[in-house]
């Protein structure tokens, strides 16, 4: 189980670990369907970005390039669409989570494990700050 001060909203009942830890990919890559790269602005990123651009805008641009558009904070399950949630804390983008076809969500936690969780907010409130934006695209 993942929890503690870094994830104060995770409980034994709202998430489960779904894969072992690996440094090969991060949450941004995971949401983009890529388990072969660690996505980083200026290094491996779908749009031109400076290596020291670390704000929420650069991750929003990346997912816009992948066909996603802003949908406010609507985390409902919509037929024909897939959704992601973007997180931020201070000046940084911190995390992205992706909705599964079941309506649950999946997160790669840094270089650590992947988890399935009930809602985006389950991984907020600690190291990832809060959900800043939700985006969706047609499937």
């Amino acid at each position, binding site marked *: 189980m993942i929890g503690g001060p*870094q*994830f104060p909203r995770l409980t034994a009942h709202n998430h489960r670990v779904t894969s072992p830890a690996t*440094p*090969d*990919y*991060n*949450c*941004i890559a995971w949401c983009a369907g890529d388990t*072969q*790269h*660690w*996505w*980083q*602005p200026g*290094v*491996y990123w779908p749009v031109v970005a400076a*290596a*020291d*651009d*670390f704000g929420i805008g650069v991750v929003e641009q990346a997912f816009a390039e992948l066909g996603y558009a802003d949908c406010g904070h609507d985390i409902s399950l919509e037929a024909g669409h897939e959704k992601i949630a973007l997180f931020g804390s201070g000046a*940084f*983008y*911190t*995390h*992205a989570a992706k909705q599964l076809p079941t309506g649950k969500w999946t997160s*790669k*936690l*840094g*270089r*650590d494990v992947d988890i399935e969780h009930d809602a985006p907010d389950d991984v907020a409130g600690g*190291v*990832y700050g809060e959900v800043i934006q939700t985006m969706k695209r047609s499937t």
Partner: protein
Amino acid sequence: MAASTLQPQSSADCRERFNRLAAEWKEKSRFLSNTAQMALLRPYQAIIGMGMPVVPLILEEMEREPDQWFWALESITEENPVRPEDAGNVRQMTKAWIDWGRQRGLMK
């Protein structure tokens, strides 16, 4: 600032300090995905501040366990041996840096 950081360090001191800072950084960055956020953590910045003497220790550590050491290596050495087509591939980036280190006699 601790007096020890103002005095020349032996290689054993350097290794001990690196091991301590690396462990601290790994713990603090465990769940982070934003590389800039990871690199701005104090232990990582302290490792960069150790300069060239720490490069062999970083290479040794990343050979043992690949991780986001690329920012530090580029900052210290002002080099980047990673081929453009390997960018983002942690295993290939790690190999490029280890090969770079071996070519320069920084690793066994």
